[in-house]
Every structure is written in structure tokens, then in C-alpha cells.
């Protein structure tokens, strides 16, 4: 069977190694105004028309190219930078998992909503991505999804983190329309209160890798010295566990690059040498 991808190969602009290191370190990548305004408006219209109502898991296991072929969503995921980010993170034409058009009503208050989507997913050297598209401008008053950078190595029980109302270093998705955030499936996140009189809409989709996630991006900058500092940096909330965080990043970077000897200050290598 010929897939849409084979019939209409998309020109993709893959991520760089520096961007991949950012993803490994922070658990997300943000692209401001990636989706053109006309596509955003058409997507909002499809949401209003009910295109995405129904069982949000009904496409599970299909390839991304098989889903929404007559929807503007297909045009969006085939934008060169959008397609390049997807291919760099989870490979060409990944498996579709599920989607959701999240909407927060005008004046809806969300006090304690911090959660993790998939602590039951025990993969370490592999991950799904979720992409969140903000089709319209999101102001601070409107809320938007809040992410806690670097928390993707911390499995917790879904809403077990609701007591953390404020975490230093959290990033609210205050964004212009068309902004997209690609994020690791275990990144802690939260919907925020919408203190405006406008409906807030965010479209989220989860994708599973179609191939081993090894060097799927543009690796021409793989030796860039920034990578080490990106993988080493802390977050304000990390406290005394920052070393364990960095060791987990080293392990994932080794898996993604296929380099079993990559290390920072010898933390992993030293332990692997064992005792004599």
C-alpha cells in the first residue's frame, strides 16, 4: 500500500543536535508562530464544526499519514519545520496515539492541575512526543499550558503532584497564535486558569516512534560544545538531586546518539568501570 507520505514526500527541516540536547535537558522544544495564521483559523473552524469530536483514541496504531487526510491538520503536520521536528524526535511517519482539543472556558479557574500523563510508561531510552498547538494568541491572563522544564525523568502518579501549586522555573505558554510545543510524554504540565472572556483552545496530539530513536535529526553539529553545557544545566527546583538529573540525561543522550561512551565529568563512566 502506498502511503500519503510516499506519494507526497514532505520537505522536512530537521532539528539540530543542539535542539535535541535542549529537548533531552528540558523535555520540550518551543517554536513560536510555526503554523501560519490562515491554517490556524481553519483549524479553529474545524474544531468548532466538530471534526475532532468522538473517541480521541480511535486512530491509535495508525500511521500519522493515515489520519486526518482531509483536514487542515494534515497540512499543519506537513509544514517543513513541523514535519522535521516530528521526524527528528520519533522518526518518519510515526504511529498515531491520540489527540485532544483542550478548551478552557472564559473565567474557568484551574487552581491545582499539575500532572504527568504517562508514568505507567516505563521506557527510558525511548519516548513518545506530544505536540501542543496554540492556534490563537495566549496571554498570561488567558492561562495556557504550564510546563515544568526538566521533570520528564521523574515518574509520579498522574495527579500526585497537584500539591505543587508553584514551582520555580515553570514556563507558562504565553504565546502568539501558531506557536507549537513538542514535549516528552512524561513532562509535568498543567492547564491554567482562564481569566479572560474568551475561550482558550489548545490542540494536543501524541505520537509513538516508528523506528529506533537514534540519530534521526541533522547530526552535522553533533560535536557542538554547547551540547555539554545544555545537558549539564540545572533548573531552580532541582535542589540536591541535580546530579542524578544530569546522569539521566547522559543516559538518554547516549541512547539517542548511539554513543555508549558519551559522558560529562565521568559520572557514568566511573561507575561503569566497576571495582577491581
Amino acid at each position, binding site marked *: 500500500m502506498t502511503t500519503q507520505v510516499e506519494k507526497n514526500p514532505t520537505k522536512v527541516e530537521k532539528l539540530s543536535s543542539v535542539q535535541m540536547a535542549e529537548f533531552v535537558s528540558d523535555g520540550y522544544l518551543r517554536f513560536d508562530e510555526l503554523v501560519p495564521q490562515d491554517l490556524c483559523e481553519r483549524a479553529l473552524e474545524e474544531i468548532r464544526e466538530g471534526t475532532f469530536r468522538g473517541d480521541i483514541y480511535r486512530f491509535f496504531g495508525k500511521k500519522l499519514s493515515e489520519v486526518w487526510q482531509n483536514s487542515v491538520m494534515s497540512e499543519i503536520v506537513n509544514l517543513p519545520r513541523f514535519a522535521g521536528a516530528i521526524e527528528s524526535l520519533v522518526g518518519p511517519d510515526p504511529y498515531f496515539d491520540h489527540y485532544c482539543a483542550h478548551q478552557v472556558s472564559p473565567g474557568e479557574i484551574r487552581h491545582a492541575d499539575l500532572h504527568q500523563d504517562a508514568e505507567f510508561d516505563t521506557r527510558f531510552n525511548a519516548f513518545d512526543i506530544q505536540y501542543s498547538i496554540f492556534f490563537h494568541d495566549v496571554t498570561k491572563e488567558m492561562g495556557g499550558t504550564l510546563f515544568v522544564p526538566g521533570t520528564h525523568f521523574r515518574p509520579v502518579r498522574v495527579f500526585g503532584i497537584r500539591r*505543587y501549586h508553584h514551582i520555580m522555573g515553570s514556563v507558562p505558554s504565553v504565546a502568539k497564535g501558531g506557536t507549537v510545543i513538542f514535549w516528552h510524554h512524561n513532562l509535568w504540565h498543567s492547564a491554567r486558569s482562564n481569566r479572560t472572556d474568551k475561550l482558550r483552545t489548545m490542540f494536543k496530539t501524541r505520537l509513538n516512534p516508528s523506528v529506533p530513536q537514534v540519530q534521526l535529526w541533522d547530526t552535522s553539529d553533533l560535536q557542538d560544545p554547547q551540547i555539554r553545557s545544555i545537558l549539564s544545566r540545572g533548573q531552580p527546583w532541582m535542589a540536591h538531586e541535580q546530579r542524578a538529573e544530569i546522569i*539521566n540525561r547522559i543516559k538518554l543522550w547516549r541512547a539517542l546518539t548511539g554513543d555508549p561512551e558519551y559522558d560529562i565529568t565521568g559520572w557514568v563512566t566511573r561507575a561503569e568501570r566497576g571495582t577491581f
Partner: protein
Amino acid sequence: MSDHPHRGLAVSTRQQVLVLYLSSTSLEGNVAGWAFYNGLEEDLYYDDDTPPYETGVAALKDGWRMISYPTLHDIDRKGGEHDLGYFKNEFVFEKLISESAK
């Protein structure tokens, strides 16, 4: 529910609770996260992104009574040295506020 024996007890104070997540196991650690519940108000929460104090000590000096001090945990299992999860440095404080001070 209104006639439940635990409800409606006559008290003259209400509790405010401040939970600080610090950057260290010591009260001297910097505030890395927090939550606040205000028993005096209808809306229990105070939705502000600015941390109330820089350190746990600063909260203590400002009159907050510490009522919970985090237990130190050994690494749970051999091989679990890199396991991470919930935040560990959780300090709980309270203030009892007189109803008349509201």
C-alpha cells in the same frame, strides 16, 4: 452533612498553611516551590507566581510556625541511585489567625 459531629465546632481562629519546597534539606535552602491555603477566605488559594520568601528561614522569621519537617530518605534500593520522583524537601508552616483579625 451539616449535623456531622466534626463540623461547626466553635473556634476563634482559622489556619493559614504555607508549604515550601526548598533547595536543600535545611530550612536555609532557597524556595524552589510553594503552595498556600488560606482558611480565612472563601477562595483558599492565592494565585501569584512570585515566591513569598527566599528561604525557609525567612518564613520562620516572619512568624510562620513550622509544623512538618521532611524526613531524610535513604536511597530505596541498590541500583536506584538515579531514580527520581516527588520533591523531598517539603516544609509545612502554619499561622493561626484570629477571626477578629480578618
